[in-house]
């Protein structure tokens, strides 16, 4: 809130490190370089962070231009507190493997659930695939 009290604007956030959560579930971390009136973002030195359990892995992505409508939320990262996390960083391969395992487990449990419900004569309608993560 600079000189416009009562308004919210991303202008003060420029050139700071941010964590951006997208609608498709991805988490991006990067320096916010530019914005516009639609809250389209330009992220610099972006890293896509994948979280599985207590572990996370970073995939460097470079420069991201994110269309504003796909942003769920974003927040500034306190650089001092950034390293102060109980989470453990692992390599990309490892985290991708972990993610795959997790997805598989989820799918299987989902399948079992649907099966059980079918046996009872019930069915849950599939969610819209768009916002599925």
């Amino acid at each position, binding site marked *: 809130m600079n000189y416009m009290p*009562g308004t919210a604007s991303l202008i003060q956030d420029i050139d700071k490190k941010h964590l951006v959560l997208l609608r498709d579930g991805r988490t991006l971390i990067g320096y916010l370089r530019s*914005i516009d009136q639609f809250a389209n973002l330009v992220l610099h030195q972006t890293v896509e962070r994948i979280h599985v359990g207590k572990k996370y892995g970073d995939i460097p992505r470079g420069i991201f231009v994110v269309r504003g409508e796909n942003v769920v939320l974003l927040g500034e990262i306190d650089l001092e507190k950034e390293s102060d996390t109980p989470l453990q960083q692992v390599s990309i391969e490892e985290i991708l493997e972990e993610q795959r395992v997790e997805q598989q487990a989820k799918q299987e449990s989902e399948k079992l659930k649907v099966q059980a419900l079918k046996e009872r004569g019930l069915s849950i309608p599939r969610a819209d695939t768009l916002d599925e993560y």
Partner: protein
Amino acid sequence: MFRYQSLEDCPLDEDEDAFQTLGEEDEDIDQFNDDTFGAGAIDDDWQEAHERLAELEDKPATARELEDGAVSDEMELLGHHEENLAERLSKLVIENELEDPAIMQAVQTQPPMQQPGGLNSSIWDGSAVLRRFRGPLLTQILCPKPVHIRAPMQQRYPSPYGERMSPNQLCNVPNSSLLGHPFPPSVTPVFTHLQRAQLLGGAQAGRMSPSQFARVSGLVCSPLTSMNPKLLQGRVGQMMPPASRFRAFFGAPPPPAPPPSQQQHPLCPGSHLQNLRPHPQVFRPDTTHLHPQHRRLLHQRQQQNRTQHRSLNGSAGDRAGHRSSHHEQLRKDPYANLMLQREKDWVSKIQMMQLQSTDPYLDDFYYQNYFQKLEKVSAAEEMHGDGPKKERTKLITPQVAKLEHAYKPVQFEGSLGKLTVSSVNNPRKMIDAVVTSRSEDDETKEKQVRDKRRQTLVTIEKTYSLLLDVEDYERRYLLSLEGERPALMEERKQKICDMYDNLRGKTPGQERPSDDHFVQIMCIRKGKRMVARILPFLSTEQAADILMATARNLPFLIKKDAQDEVLLCLLRPFSLVLYHLPSGTVTSLLQQLANLPQSATVPAPANLHLAAVLQNKFGLSLLYLVLSRGEELQNSSAAVELMQDNQWTELMSMATRELLRIPEAALAKPVSTPSNLLSLFSRYVDQQKLNVLETKLQLVQGIR
């Protein structure tokens, strides 16, 4: 370097007769040659440029000073045209607003060689003298399009139309006059003469320096226009990364790395404003985009930034310590400030534009209310305590007068037919939907019922909007002028009458034979709430009438309200009405509640109506209120007639009988038990029954 004038003379018209061109082409080429290498060209420039280039690599600092000398020359050249441009642009600003912004693009993609008068006159009127090719760009610049930074900018003839030219893009164009600072020539030494010429040609063809842009549009980028070499340095340092790429492109040796030049000037936000002398702003009276208050605040902010930097550079302030670490980071961040201050202002400007409104109370009701409440609270606090006044800065949005824009779709002279362009402001009819009214013949009972309900709903909605209007009159009254007030009062009265008519159903006859309409409304949740809100506005008779109708139909309403339990909202307004009612009305009211015909004297064994009333929370509460009121009237001196009224006595006895009859369990819990009921009952019943009543109804305080 090309002289400004000479470029303008360059015939770029393409619609010349083809057969004539051969001979003319030779002449043109000659002229081009002349301008480039011959008498038309100013030789010293490119030599100087080379010098500067050489020096640039060795001594960045001294080079700057040399540039400043050349700068003034060029600025003079541009200066003449700036003023002209300024005038024309001023016209453009006004007229631009009339354009449909949603189809701005369409206009700009026009073939450039149209006659100025042919295109939509509002854009081109003011710029008739302006070169055609500049036109579209100007509109773009005045309403800048989204920025996209082009890394290694290809060398090409920039087409001035149909492309999104943004300030930033132009910044990256080598040697563009819009290199993010008003002194393009300072960076010219980097490039060869020809390249510069090409680019300048492009620049003349349609671009403007930010100084023109800033000065003319009156936006708050004017600080950028002040002549300051230091600004230059900061900017040049910033510009080095793209410049280096350009150099690589042209095969020239890369310049010194950015950090050295940047170290001199920390590129923290506002750093480019750091050493600006206070620059008197030219407030254009017709820019409604930034409220003067905002400009002032912006200035303040800039000053604050400046003072912060001073404290940072000079003595150590409390904030300086903290801020220095922040600025340290930014200093080390070579990619900082990719988004220029001008661009940030542009985004803010758009955000502020969205806040412009003709009637903020209407457009932004919740925000206004919220801040009014806050202000009241803080004002109250200030009254009580002598604590430090918390300066709560309030956003002041410009109040724009509502302009009726008659939207005219884009037209071209000499074209057949109209453009099929549809935008948000000019929607096209896509489908021909015909409304077919239902025939009355084959309507079944259900349909009729449904229609009736729909009618009731519509009535409720209409009455509700009347109610909202009436409630708003107080505020309007305060805002209006003296002369308008009687008219406002009249309107208000009329609306209240309309509301009442709506509630009771407009009857042709004198009497209101049926409560049906009213009951229908009362069966709907929203209707009940609305009646509760309307009651305070009605006159006593009207309100009494409503009360009567409610009491008359209470069992039915109770039954209908079983799920909603909204009837209770009516208690408060009802009680308020009751306190104004005369005794006769109160008696009739009780009568209605008990559902006795006026002349009946034979009490039924069980009064079902009353029983239903008693078993309902609302009903019982209402009854209590009525009784309480009656008691009050009895106690007051002027109500002697109530005592003598046989009806009242009858009703009371009936009421007490009923109260006694109904088992306690079935009796509802009233909202509140008036304190004078005990004395009321004591008049009509003997002690034994009184005791029973007491315990049953918990009339004595303390038994809870």
